[in-house]
């Protein structure tokens, strides 16, 4: 498979950016808080190296097969990251509020339905079934991710739950990337994904540049510490705890009346 200087440059930049991000995640102890996100970044490093080796030594078909498999893994991990962010936003006390969980399920179901609808609507000019699966799969994943993040924003504002700083930064990066990839993958659906096509090449370049920008954004944002939450004075905290215990006692009495 023939690779030009630009391909090598972006491969190297992607690998370097991911390694730096992983170092930031490790040294700033974000891996414990965001295990799925850490796995996604680690998987992307493996993906970049694997694809480079397959591109150098394999055929175009083997490259596409490997790319499709790794993209499927990537989508699964991205969905796990969405769930991870949702846990940080919608479980502020470590427990799902029942109505929020229902709302989140509705968001997930609606997102899958709309993304699947849009994907089937597109007419893919791909010559092989593998290329068609790849184009449709990429479009489906970007549409799904964008809708999920949009739905989560709407849901969190509706129920009044604030976003924790690092979870919000991860979601912003992934959400922005998904939004741009909807446009690039829609372009691939219309114009095809042939390497010889100028439009297809430009769309791929736009997607890669956007992703690298997001990785750099994560490097900066995850390096920074989240603003320290304001602490309650010890006296007020103990009063609040005492008040809460009193109310718990009263509520137990009330529930016993049923």
């Amino acid at each position, binding site marked *: 498979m023939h690779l030009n200087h630009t391909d090598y440059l972006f491969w190297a930049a992607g690998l370097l950016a991911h390694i730096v991000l992983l170092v930031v995640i490790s040294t700033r102890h974000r891996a414990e808080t965001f295990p799925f996100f850490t796995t996604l970044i680690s998987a992307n490093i493996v993906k970049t190296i694997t694809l480079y080796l397959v591109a150098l030594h394999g055929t175009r078909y083997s490259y596409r097969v490997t790319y499709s498999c790794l993209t499927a893994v990537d989508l699964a991990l991205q969905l796990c990251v969405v769930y991870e962010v949702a846990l940080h936003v919608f479980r*502020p*006390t470590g*427990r799902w*509020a*029942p*109505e929020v969980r229902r709302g989140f399920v509705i968001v997930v179901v609606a997102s899958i339905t*709309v993304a699947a609808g*849009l994907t089937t*609507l*597109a*007419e893919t000019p791909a010559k092989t079934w593998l290329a068609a699966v790849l184009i449709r799969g990429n479009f489906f994943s970007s*549409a799904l991710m*964008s*809708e999920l993040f*949009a739905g989560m*924003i*709407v849901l969190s*504002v*509706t*129920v*009044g*739950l*604030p976003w924790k700083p690092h979870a919000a930064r991860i979601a912003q990066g992934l959400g922005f990337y998904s939004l741009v990839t*909807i446009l690039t993958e*829609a372009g691939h*659906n*219309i*114009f095809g994904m042939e390497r010889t096509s100028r439009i297809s090449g430009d769309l791929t370049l736009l997607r890669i540049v956007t992703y690298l920008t997001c990785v750099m954004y994560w490097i900066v944002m995850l390096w920074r510490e989240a603003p320290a*939450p*304001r602490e*309650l004075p010890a006296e*007020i*905290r103990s*009063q*609040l705890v005492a*008040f*809460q215990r009193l*109310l718990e006692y*009263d*509520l137990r*009495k*009330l*529930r016993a*009346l*049923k």
Partner: protein
Amino acid sequence: MMISGRSIYFVVVLVVVLAALGTAVAYYYLRYRRRQTFPYGNWESLLSRLSTVDRDKIALISQNVLNESESRRMDEDNSDPNATQIWSLVGGLKGLEAMERNCAVLVDLAFYVQQWYPEASVVAQQLRLNAREVQWHVGRLKSAAQTGKLEIFFSDYAQPAITTYYLMTRRVLALYEKYNLPGLGDLQRAI
């Protein structure tokens, strides 16, 4: 390059979906920013959502259950209020429905505090559970009303609902008092 009719249709639908997504995100993001930038801007609208309920009568019914104050019993002979008395004090099913609507506002009032004090989320979550408890009781009463058995079940479900609502109001007031938030006076008059 020729673009097929189906591709044009796809682009139109995609643009509509993206516009809808963008509008929803922009609207809710602006709502969030407004809340951040002008945290007290919506205070009046929050209070205006409260339906009128007689808080003294609610306190009277609740304190009989909670035994908070023997001196504030309803009757001179220290007997608990019966179903008929509770019915008239609370304003019947309409009064309970007003209370149920107010529960949602009480939860919002706790979330209002949570914007600046994340610790308040514990209270907000507890209020959510209490609100559901009130909804459950009022829901039972509505079902009983539909089957013509309201009188039989009124005392079973009304008193717990009223007392839970009363505790929710106390909890919200305590929350505002502890954080020494402006608007406490308005809140005391409103709930």
